[in-house]
């Protein structure tokens, strides 16, 4: 197929790219609602349960830069197809996993596939749309990414209630097949025409640095931020990152031109995305707990409660194009982040009797702020690099999102856990030691302790009555 034909079909190609992104976005968010069921079915420990989520995140984040540069070098559509096939294979293995360990390995494989898919969707988009259409295309791409926040939990919640747990993984297979067919028909191949030798050392160092840093972030809340292993992971990750930068500055064929960080547009946009994902993912993490454990919503209902956040993202992402043209990226991104901050201030008012309307409104405003900031910030990153480097630029955009999100969950999760534990100290003094420790661990565990105690009381009463009878 000739390039003009591909150019004429660029909007159809965008549907394929956006749907591919949606597949991995849903693939991640759908799992959250299934975790309690998976824990029962696989008899998984809480550590294993955490690694079912984290093995994906670790491999995904660790391989992003390498996958982006491989796409630039060997072809972005090829990288997208390889990523989709790997993701589908991981999904099938996950569906038929008979143990927690097998599921952790399958999820890691899904993470490898997602690392191939995520950066290539944006890098292909950057290459098939002219500059004047690119902000609109990126806004659609960003809006679809937001859609996964609601689609995943709703689909997952429905499947858990009506079908089998394996369905949450197998649903990826027909979706991936549709993406593969669309990619073959509509997505053109593209690569960096100036690409020379592959920067293998840079690739290896980027993977090692990101894996060490992300592993530290994942494990820090459990092991403690001052734990020797955690400090070693951060120090090692930072040292390898420094070696990566030194290597990239010295080599004549760097995978990432680190000089790009001197470009304020690139650096400020990257920082904005990191901050917005720090706040968003951190808050999504504790909002899920709040909806489930504090308000007692079902998985499906909790998913439906996320819909306004996704709707806000979609509406605002579309509006951001026109606003950026009129006001400039500086004002729109700043206004978006300020809106997110405002919605988070509203979140501080959440109580056990907060009305659903208030929560839905807060979610809509938060989604609106994220949608407003994301598209112009992403466009600022992609516009700072030449289209030939779109793969590595897109990968950088994804890395700052992943690191920001992981950092948000780790830091805000730690803060939440410690403030909850200190707030519970006085309330568990009369409990047996084991029950007190469990109740101060999480709201969910406290519910279990309360339920067990209530059950024991109703069970003990008849015995007391009987023993005190004639």
């Amino acid at each position: 197929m000739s390039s003009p034909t591909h150019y004429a079909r660029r909007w159809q190609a965008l549907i394929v790219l956006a749907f591919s992104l949606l597949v991995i976005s849903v693939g991640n968010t759908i799992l959250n609602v299934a975790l309690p069921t998976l824990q029962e079915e696989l008899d998984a420990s809480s550590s294993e349960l955490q690694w079912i989520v984290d093995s994906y995140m670790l491999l995904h984040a660790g391989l992003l830069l390498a996958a982006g540069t491989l796409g630039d070098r060997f072809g972005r559509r090829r990288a997208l197809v390889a990523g989709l096939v790997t993701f589908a294979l991981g999904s099938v293995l996950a569906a038929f996993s008979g143990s927690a360990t097998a599921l952790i390995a399958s999820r890691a494989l899904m993470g490898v596939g997602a690392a191939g898919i995520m950066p290539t969707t944006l890098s292909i988009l950057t290459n098939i749309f002219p500059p004047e259409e690119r902000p609109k295309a990126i806004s659609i791409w960003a809006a679809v990414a937001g859609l996964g926040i609601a689609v995943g939990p709703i689909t997952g919640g429905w499947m858990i209630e009506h079908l089998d747990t394996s369905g949450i993984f197998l649903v990826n297979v027909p979706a991936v097949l549709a993406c593969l067919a669309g990619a073959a028909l509509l997505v053109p191949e593209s690569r960096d025409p100036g690409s020379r030798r592959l920067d293998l050392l840079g690739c290896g160092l980027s993977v090692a640095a990101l894996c060490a840093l992300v592993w530290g972030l994942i494990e820090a809340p459990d092991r403690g931020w001052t734990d020797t292993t955690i400090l070693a992971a951060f120090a090692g990750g930072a040292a390898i990152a420094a070696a990566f930068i030194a290597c990239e500055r010295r080599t004549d064929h760097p995978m990432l031109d680190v000089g790009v960080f001197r470009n304020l547009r690139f650096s400020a946009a990257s920082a904005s995305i990191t901050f917005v994902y720090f706040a968003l993912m951190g808050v999504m993490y504790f909002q899920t707990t709040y909806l489930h454990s504090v308000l007692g919503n079902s998985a499906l209902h909790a998913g439906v409660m996320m819909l306004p956040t996704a709707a806000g993202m979609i509406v605002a992402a579309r509006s951001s194009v026109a606003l950026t043209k009129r006001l400039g990226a500086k004002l729109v991104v700043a206004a978006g982040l300020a809106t997110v901050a405002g919605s988070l201030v509203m979140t501080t008012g959440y109580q056990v009797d907060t009305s659903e309307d208030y929560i839905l409104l807060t979610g809509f405003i938060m989604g609106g702020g994220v949608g407003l900031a994301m598209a112009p910030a992403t466009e600022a990153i992609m516009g700072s690099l030449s289209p030939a480097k779109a793969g590595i630029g897109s990968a950088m955009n994804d890395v700052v999102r992943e690191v920001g999100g992981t950092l948000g969950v780790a830091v805000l999760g730690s803060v939440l856990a410690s403030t909850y534990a200190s707030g519970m100290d006085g309330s568990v003094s009369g409990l047996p030691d084991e029950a007190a420790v469990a109740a101060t661990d999480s709201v969910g565990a406290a519910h279990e302790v309360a339920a067990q105690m209530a059950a024991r009381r109703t069970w003990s009463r008849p015995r007391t009555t009987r023993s005190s009878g004639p």
Partner: protein
Amino acid sequence: MSTTAGIAAGIALAGALIAAAFLPARARGRSVAPLEPVASVAS
């Protein structure tokens, strides 16, 4: 929970300040790098 949300709000506000301070005012949805979309697409 209010402490956690408060910290998140502070982080988002810091991001807003960084964007306001360092993003260029005139980057009005236009790419800095010139791009010929068709020419950059191989095959």
